[in-house]
């Protein structure tokens, strides 16, 4: 059955490509089928713990899902299917779609495969498939591929090869590729290896989860891939890094003597990532870049939670991972919808779409509230648990840093909403219509998901708890959470339902007595009809305030943003190229030189033969 799932995925990818040659509708159908059928099969027939194993050139590979993987599979499959539906109208009219769709299926397959693989080889194989399929998506639109695409792939390759190095070391140490064997025998490794292996693995996972200082690929890649894919790219694919990081942090690092410092370092890297990502997101004028940097920041929180690693922190991190999948997926979809309808995703160009695209705005609003972590939506639960865990585990400075970044996050949240939907309604965008339902419904579903999880986090905390118990945590149910209650180390509680009801009640009251009654009486005037000191702004006069939106704030935090790792990497790259150019000159293209080389070669060998050949 497990094989069948992957076979269907692969075949679906191929068929999607081929059927595009026949008829686009057929292609769309095949595409959706090859996403949905395996997913259904997966949830129907695969239960946790069932594994299949086979042997390939001497390595024993085994596939099977465990509770943690099951949790992440919710993100991958759910988001994947929704994004698949979204993709069909979003990508309509683009060129070589067969390529796009089959890559799409391949990415989903590889992510599911990562969750399935119980051994390092297949883990790595699926990891690499994921990498190059996402790379092909990044370069899909062909915008400066040589810079952004190559940067993404080089960073992914560095990460992957670090992982590969770790894998072969592990194999040489205990002649087995199974992850379980690694975990069981890790304690017996010598200290150098105990340090080297987790660090190498963390480099590998850190790249995908955009951890400082390996995050520089993120902004470009996220914004260059088609939005229909970026919603998975940021929502699900980056979570694979988190998945691996969880395994390393929980299973390996505690075994290391002095492993504490590794945890702290990673936690601080995560915090720095969060702050840097947030500040850069505030500085962006392009929605895609803004969301990209904000993804980096959000992943920073998750990394902090994983690295701190107390049960509450782990709960928080995994919950935030799910939430991030939901709202960031929705937000990228919103951006895609706006870009599709208006042709640009730049705040300085497009404004005042709220009355044109109300449903999109609703999705954006809910997702943004969730992102900002404002109750009663789900983002708050994750934030709350993260803060409580940090305070409870006495990371006092860390909690301040995190709080700073999540407060500064309000800035870009508002910028996103204002830039697209609020503000002056320009004549230029009068023609804009609401996006097709097939695009809007997935967004709204995701946004609604954040709402539900805000009221009943237990729904998702339950599988998280299962996954954590599997990794050796004690059960946290009742200790830290109930269906709709949260507790911290000191037993202070949050009851989410009363909060929700209170908010709904007050809101309903004022909505009725202020909005409905008021709205009836009032009549709509255009956004040109504002108190501009008696002047009557004409249609073509642009009163929108969207350039240098947060200039004072940015001026304040300028010293923090002066250092930019990206620059250093580029410098390094240029230096390397210069060096390579030098080595290229070794081959002068002159026969005599080559002959001379040969002579020198043999002379050297003859001179040093005693030392070289140990005579």
């Amino acid at each position, binding site marked *: 059955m497990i094989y069948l799932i992957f076979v269907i995925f692969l075949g679906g990818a191929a068929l999607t490509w081929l059927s595009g040659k026949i008829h686009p509708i057929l292609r769309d159908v095949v595409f959706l089928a090859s996403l949905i059928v395996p997913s259904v099969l997966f949830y129907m027939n695969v239960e946790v713990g069932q594994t299949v194993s086979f042997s390939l050139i001497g390595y024993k590979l085994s596939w099977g899902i465990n509770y943690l993987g099951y949790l992440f599979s919710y993100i991958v499959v759910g988001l994947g299917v929704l994004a698949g539906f979204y993709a069909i109208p979003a990508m309509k009219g683009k060129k070589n779609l067969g390529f796009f769709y089959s890559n799409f299926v391949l990415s989903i397959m590889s992510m599911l495969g990562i969750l399935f693989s119980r051994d390092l080889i297949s883990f790595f194989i699926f990891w690499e498939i994921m990498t190059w399929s996402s790379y092909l998506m990044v370069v899909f639109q062909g915008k400066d591929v040589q810079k952004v695409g190559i940067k993404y792939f080089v960073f992914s390759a560095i990460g992957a090869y670090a992982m590969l190095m770790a894998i072969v070391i592990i194999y040489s140490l205990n002649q087995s590729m199974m992850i379980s064997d690694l975990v069981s025998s890790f304690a017996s490794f010598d200290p150098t290896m105990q340090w080297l292996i987790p660090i190498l693995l963390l480099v590998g996972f850190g790249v995908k989860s955009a951890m400082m200082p390996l995050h520089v690929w993120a902004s470009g890649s996220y914004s260059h891939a088609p939005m229909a894919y970026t919603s998975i790219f940021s929502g699900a694919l980056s979570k694979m890094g988190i998945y691996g990081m969880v395994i390393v942090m929980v299973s390996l690092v505690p075994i290391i003597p002095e492993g504490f410092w590794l945890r702290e370092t990673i936690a601080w890297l995560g915090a720095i990532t969060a702050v840097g990502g947030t500040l850069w997101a505030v500085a962006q004028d392009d929605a895609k870049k803004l969301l990209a940097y904000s993804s980096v920041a959000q992943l920073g929180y998750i990394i902090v939670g994983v690295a701190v690693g107390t049960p509450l922190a782990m709960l928080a991190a995994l919950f935030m991972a799910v939430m991030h999948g939901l709202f960031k997926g929705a937000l990228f979809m919103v951006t895609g919808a706006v870009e599709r309808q208006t042709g640009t995703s730049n705040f300085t160009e497009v404004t005042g779409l*709220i009355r044109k695209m109300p449903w999109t705005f609703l999705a954006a*609003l809910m997702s943004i509230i969730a992102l900002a*972590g*404002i*109750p009663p939506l789900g983002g708050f639960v994750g*934030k*709350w648990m993260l803060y*409580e865990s940090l*305070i409870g585990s*006495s990371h*006092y*400075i860390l*909690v*301040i840093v995190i*709080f*700073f970044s999540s*407060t500064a996050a*309000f*800035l870009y*949240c*508002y910028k996103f*909403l*204002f830039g697209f939907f*609020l*503000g*002056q309604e320009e004549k230029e965008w009068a023609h804009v219509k609401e996006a097709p339902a097939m695009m809007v419904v997935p967004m709204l579903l995701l946004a609604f998901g954040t709402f539900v999880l805000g009221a009943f986090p237990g729904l998702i905390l339950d599988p998280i708890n299962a996954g954590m118990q599997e990794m050796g945590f004690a059960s946290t149910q009742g200790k830290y959470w109930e269906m709709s209650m949260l507790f*911290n180390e000191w037993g*202070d*509680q*949050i*009851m989410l339902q009363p*909060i929700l009801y*209170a*908010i709904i009640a*007050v*809101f309903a009251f*004022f*909505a009725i007595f*202020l*909005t409905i009654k*008021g*709205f009836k*009486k*009032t*009549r*709509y*005037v255009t*956004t*040109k*009809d*504002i*108190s501009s000191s008696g002047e009557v702004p004409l249609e073509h006069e642009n009163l*929108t*305030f969207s350039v240098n*939106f*947060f200039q*004072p*704030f940015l*001026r*304040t935090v300028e010293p923090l943003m002066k250092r930019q790792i990206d620059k250093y990497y580029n410098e390094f790259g240029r230096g390397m190229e210069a060096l390579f150019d030098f080595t290229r000159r070794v081959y002068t293209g002159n026969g005599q030189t080559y002959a001379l080389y040969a002579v020198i070669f043999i002379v050297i060998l003859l001179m040093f033969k005693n030392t070289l050949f140990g005579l």
Partner: protein
Amino acid sequence: MELTLNILGAIATIVLAFIVGMSYGGIVRKITARIHNRMGPPWYQNFIDAFKLIGKTTAINHGIMQHFGPAFVMVSSIVSLMFIPILNNGGWFTNLNFDGDLIFLIYIMVFGPLGMALGAGQTGNPNSAIGVTRGLSQMVGFEIPWVMALVALMIQFDTTSVTGLMEAQHETGRWMMFTSPFAFIAAVLAMLGMFRYSPFDIVGAPTELASGPVSENGGKYLFTMMSSGSIFAFVKLTLYVDLFMGGADNLIILVLKTFALYMVPVLYGIVSPRYRTEQSIKFFWGWPTFFGFIAILYAVFV
């Protein structure tokens, strides 16, 4: 029955907060006038204004969000009011005090500004947007020392709930402004920004931004903003009193304590000019943050 009693208690709390907040506003106007060597309006002037604003017709709107914005703001202030212990022995006013904690309060408090920002954004008035950006930037400024102070309290008394902190105060018998003075200093400095009196009134700078976010809101909207502002002021003051001044046993003491605390930003504001945005942010990241840091160290090591 239970539920109805709770609802009645909640309504009573809201009314109390409204009245106290509004009259504080009037009294502040009076005091300001006195300091300007004027006679000033009567202390109930704010009520008159509020009533008049209700009476004013609201003929136009700039879209649905302009209507929802004030609703969001009211939600924020009232819900946060629900979670603040008004009196030590809750009595009538224990609404939802035990269902939330400080971190929840911090977050529900920023719900309002966001709603106001949305309402302001819908009107399309550039001044509103500018005011909103200023407000958010300033919020990033003063939240840092404020949270540092709160974290200091939390780690000092091993609880994150307001009620827990109040009980801790009762056990020690000393107000926290004495048991953890640096936290108090940081919190009060942050409060200057929270109340947005001069020199931190950069959001609604009347002549510079034409009263900023509310510049398109007359009539009901303005009334809603005004009253929610008053309730919100009451909420913050009560929270400070609960945290640092050992709460209040009855309303009189509550009023006295809150009023005394309220005078800090007011009196400081009357005699000050206005900061620019980056100046105010830098201010909050200067000494207040330093004191917050000291407070955390103090809480850890003492």
